[in-house]
Structure formats: C-alpha cells, structure tokens
C-alpha cells in the first residue's frame, strides 16, 4: 500500500529519529510512504505570525504538489505541519476566491480535496489493526501520553472530539501493553516555538509537564510532535533549571514505542539520537 508523506523540515533534521522509526514500522506493516516530490517548508509558526498569505501559500504548495502526484491520502507526522496543512485546507475550502488566488500565485491547480492524516490517525488506521501479531516486546510500564496543542486544537478544524482528554495515543500504548496514566497535562502547551528565542518559557511550561508526568508515576513520556519532543528532551537543562531538580524521565515518539514493541532494535528506532538517555523499565531488544 502506498500513502503520501509530508515529512516537514524537522523530520529530516532535528527530529530524524521520528522519521526513522516511522518508516521502520511502516515497512514492518507493509506500507510504503512516498514523500511528496519537491515538498517545501510549511512555514510553521513563523509564517502565520508574520504574513497571512505566506501562511497559506507555503502549505498550499505541498497540497497542490501532492494532488499533482495523484495522492488521495497524506500522512503528516509533524503535529505543527499537520496543523498548518489542515488549517490551510479549511480556510481555502471556506473561501473559494482565496483558494483561486493562492492557486494563481502558486501557478499550480488546487482542488484542495486531499485527505490529511496526523500520525495518530495514520497509526490507528493502518498500523494498529496489524499490531496484534507484531507486538513482541510489550511496553509493560506506566507512560504519560502527551499530545500537546496542535494535534487537537482548534477542535472544530482538527475534528477532535475529546480535545481536553484525548485517548488515541493512550489506546495505542495500551495495545502495546503499557499502562497509559490519566494525567491533567495531556494537552498543556510545552512552550512551542520559543525553543530558541525564549528558552525560560519553555523551561517553565515543559517543566510543569514533566513534573506532573513524574508525579503521576510515569516512566516515560510518549509524544507525537517534534517540537514537543525537542522541548521536553533537548531542552531538559532548561527544565531542570526551572524545577531546580534533575529529571531523568525519557521522552520517546509513539512511533519509537511501536518500533521497540515490534522487536526492532533501539538503533532502528533512533533512540540514540535523544538527549535524555532512554532507560525504560523493560528489556530493550539487543542491537542487531
């Protein structure tokens, strides 16, 4: 089976392990993810903060290119890119003249009908049904599933029903044998794009999340967003500074959890690329 993939800039750069683990588990499940040819940056936070037209034209170019390639479904693993693509699709579907304007600017046709999935929707639809046979190493410990903001909000565009207490990732982790704890910081903001420009804000917001996860007994935080991962993992020193305490809890991507559960090696899952050492209370498969 072939499905379109929009990787976004972080998956090829600072969140390489997300891409690696995603492609690895897709391969195990017999799914081919095809990158959109000549995809561009979606503009992330910067575009919509500074310029409305760019915030629409940058994501729209990717939708148009995907359409040209005949893709009907598109997986967008990065939560921020997913949010930008869906928001763009929503805005352009509501305003036909705006869609025409952007299409003219791009000099590309734009029907705007492609189905866009985030990683959780993709996993739910294509991976979870096949999980049964594939789980070799159950992740039998307490995990805190952290969704962040952009996967679930704004709820009318993202079409999320349980936007205050989502369960999609929790259900997947439960299928892997984990105990997904109930905790109140599932959708609290981690500090988003201030990773470089206002590190102390990230330290505070991500610090509160980490502390709450640890207080509730979690042994790992599972995420589905490169920005959240970066803030919770790479920016751990800022978190430790805010909390005045060294926090050891590792942060892994949902795709990595699935990869490890499937029996893939830590290397295949890209665990070594993390800043906070990933020590999980179960035996990880030996590096082949």
């Amino acid at each position: 089976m072939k499905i379109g993939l929009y990787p976004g800039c972080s998956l090829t750069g600072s969140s390489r392990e997300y891409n690696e683990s995603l492609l690895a588990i897709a391969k195990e499940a017999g799914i081919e993810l095809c990158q959109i040819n000549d995809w561009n940056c979606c503009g992330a936070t910067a575009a919509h903060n500074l310029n409305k037209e760019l915030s629409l034209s940058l994501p729209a170019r990717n939708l148009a290119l995907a359409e040209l390639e005949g893709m009907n479904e598109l997986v967008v693993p990065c939560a921020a890119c997913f949010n930008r693509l869906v928001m763009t699709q929503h805005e352009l579907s509501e305003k036909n003249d705006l869609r025409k304007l952007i299409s003219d600017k791009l000099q590309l046709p734009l029907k705007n009908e492609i189905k866009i999935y985030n990683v959780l929707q993709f996993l739910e639809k294509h991976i979870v049904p096949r999980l049964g046979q594939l789980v070799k190493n159950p992740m039998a410990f307490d995990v805190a599933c952290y969704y962040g903001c952009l996967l679930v909000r704004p709820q009318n565009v993202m079409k999320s029903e349980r936007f205050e207490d989502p369960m999609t990732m929790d259900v997947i982790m439960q299928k892997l044998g984990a105990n997904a704890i109930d905790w109140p910081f599932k959708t609290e903001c981690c500090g988003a794009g201030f990773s470089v420009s206002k590190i102390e804000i990230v330290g505070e917001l991500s610090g509160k999340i980490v502390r709450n996860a640890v207080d509730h007994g979690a042994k790992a935080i599972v995420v589905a967003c490169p920005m959240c991962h970066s803030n919770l993992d790479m920016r751990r020193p800022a978190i430790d500074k805010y909390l005045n305490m060294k926090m050891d809890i590792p942060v892994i991507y949902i795709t990595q959890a699935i990869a490890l559960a499937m029996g893939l090696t830590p290397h295949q899952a890209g665990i070594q690329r993390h800043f906070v050492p990933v020590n999980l209370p179960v035996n990880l498969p030996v590096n082949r």
Partner: protein
Amino acid sequence: MDTEDLSVKVRRETGVNVRECYQCGKCTAGCPVGERMDLRPSVIMRMLQSGDYASEEEILRSNSIWLCLTCETCYSRCPMELDIPKVFDYLREKSYAEGKVNHEARDIVTFHKSFLNAVERNGRLHEMSLILDYKIHSGNFFQDVTLAPEMYSKGKLHLLPERIKDRVGFARLFKDQFKKRKS
C-alpha cells in the same frame, strides 16, 4: 490618519466580531503565558471594543501579541467561540508591517524572520542558516554554543542545506510580502 476602528479591520480580515466578547476572562485564565503578558487577551479584546485609538496603538506595541504561543487554548474554551489566535495573527502582521514591535519581543520576531529567510533561500529549513541568521540579527552570539556540536554528533544538524528544485517559482511566493507600511 485612518479613522476606521481597529476592531472593524479585525472583523473584515478575520471574521471575528469583538462585540461578542463579554469579558469573562476565560481566555486569560487558561493562557500558559498569561502571567507574563503586559496586556492579557481579555484586556486586548476590551481595548478593541473600546475603539480608542491610543489603546489600539498600545495593542500593536505590546509584547503580549508576540508572547502568544498560538496554543489555541483560549479559542478552544471561549464560550463565545471567538477565534482569538486568528485575531492575534492579524495584530502581529500589522504590528510587524508598521514597525511597532515591542522591544522585549525583538528576539521572538527576529527568530520568526530568520526562519522565513532560511526557508526563502532553500525552500526548506536549514537549521544552520536559521541559527546564524538569528544570532547575527539578535546579537545572541553565544546562545546554545554547546548544543550545536551535540546535535551534530546525533545526526540532527546538517552542514549543507537541502534545497528544493523549483526555487524560482518558490521565490515568487515571498516577493513583496514584507513591504513596510504606514499605519
């Protein structure tokens, strides 16, 4: 001087009618950076309602609009379903275009602009480009100096950029987008 209320412009560009806000403050109550803002979201809505020119200037020159993380928590909880993040996007664009960015928010705006500069050059984000651009424009030369080598060793930092093929068509999207304008 333009005599149209800012709230009228907001309504036209974003569709949000600030009159519907009844000042309950739930947006501010849930905002992760509410404590740090000089003008909190519900206060900004009130200032827009007032139609007072001085208040409108204060909004555009505030640090609040830049501290906003667009986490969408306010919009998801607003009883009147007002799209505050969309209003703030509009206020930010206006603030930047009119050169009214708050001094304390300079770093934030510099980061955003450096990001877009990097994207404009290559079509995709080349992190080294972004960081260099940011450091030059913000003056934060020594920020994260120890981080870069570690990122490189973990394979997360590329020295050379990945470039898209249709750079000419892409550049068209950026043309004239950042012309400064008078208020």
